[in-house]
């Protein structure tokens, strides 16, 4: 099973606390901190932009169907302050993203963590 889509409904108070409290916008209105997903896929696009940097990655479902997910990261400027660059990930990289699911039901998450295939963490450290 290539796709790991796990929705954790319990014990998320800690996660809510880990989400940066100060943001360009109120993240909680768009993304549901009580619905956390963990997805593994291949990066198809990187947008090194403000007010949020974004990665798009292709995740294969149980039925073999590939879905492109839109991952909202922190602001580019916030990430740059922590030393990340547009080259911290590349198209074709396999990453595992854990984050809050978009409330609207679209394939979008606000990232809590992004792990590369070697287990290293990228894009942490910025305030959204």
């Amino acid at each position, binding site marked *: 099973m290539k796709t790991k889509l796990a929705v954790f409904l319990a014990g998320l108070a800690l996660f809510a606390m*880990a989400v940066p409290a100060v943001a360009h*916008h109120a993240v909680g209105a768009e993304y549901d901190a009580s619905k956390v997903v963990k997805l593994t896929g291949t990066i198809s696009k990187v947008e090194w*932009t403000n007010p949020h940097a974004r990665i798009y990655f292709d995740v294969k479902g149980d039925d073999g169907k590939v879905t492109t997910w839109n991952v909202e990261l922190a602001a580019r400027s916030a990430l740059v302050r922590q030393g990340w660059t547009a080259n911290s990930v590349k198209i074709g990289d396999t990453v595992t993203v854990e984050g809050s699911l978009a409330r609207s039901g679209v394939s979008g998450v606000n990232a809590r963590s992004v792990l590369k295939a070697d287990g290293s963490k990228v894009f*942490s450290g910025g305030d959204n």
Partner: protein
Amino acid sequence: MKRLLVVCAVTALLVPLVVQSAFTQAGPEAGKVQALRRAGPDKGPVPRLPDGTVDLGDGVWTGGGPVQDLEAQGGLKKGELDALMLPWAKALMATRDETQEPHNACLPMGVPRVTPFPYRFIQNYTHKKPTHMFILHEGNIHTYRQIFMDGRKHPAELDSTWLGHSIGAWEKDTLVIDTVGYNDKFWFDRRGHPHTEQLHTIERWTRLTKGEMENKFTLDDPGAYTKPITMTFKAILMPPQDELLEYICQENNQYGVQTLPGYSGPQIGNAPKK
């Protein structure tokens, strides 16, 4: 009670910093930044220009204004500000939710609001003496405030704007900024505290130490609040290697486009004209 309020205000200020610190540990530069943040604000002496004036331009600042809640973050008691609101203002605020705020649409934050991103005070120099102070905000959006320091008065005819018409002067070691001529479009905070074009603000910026600055802010808007009220915010100097960065909010702002079903954009203004 007062002590409780101070504790609440300090907590409100520190929580985002603590949360941010907890979130910074994995970044390649996080070690340096983390060490500086752990050390806390520099309690050293206030730096001064050769003429003795307090130097506000030697670094970039964060904080010093509200984001989530003007009342709570300004150190007021719960309900203290809201009790001063005129009925129409209360009714308008009751219709607002944070998804509608202009800030989400990359519109300016207004005064005294701040963002998670830093700002810098820049004083100009001329062949006579400084005449203008600018406050350059990285986000959201790239915004500059222009404060006339040459002794001029506010014009009789005001063309209402997001950031108003500001005149400034030093009162001993405090930079006093007096602003009128605001439009009614921005929200003071995510709760949606409104105002009118009659808004008059007075900011009293006092650098307490090298790393800390106080903004004592007076909100005077007879169109929306029954009497003026003063609140206090604290700004923190960022680590010395920090600089303003480019932040073009309009470049890729996807707020609400796919994530908020039925999102109809920001609620701007709606305050009655005077």
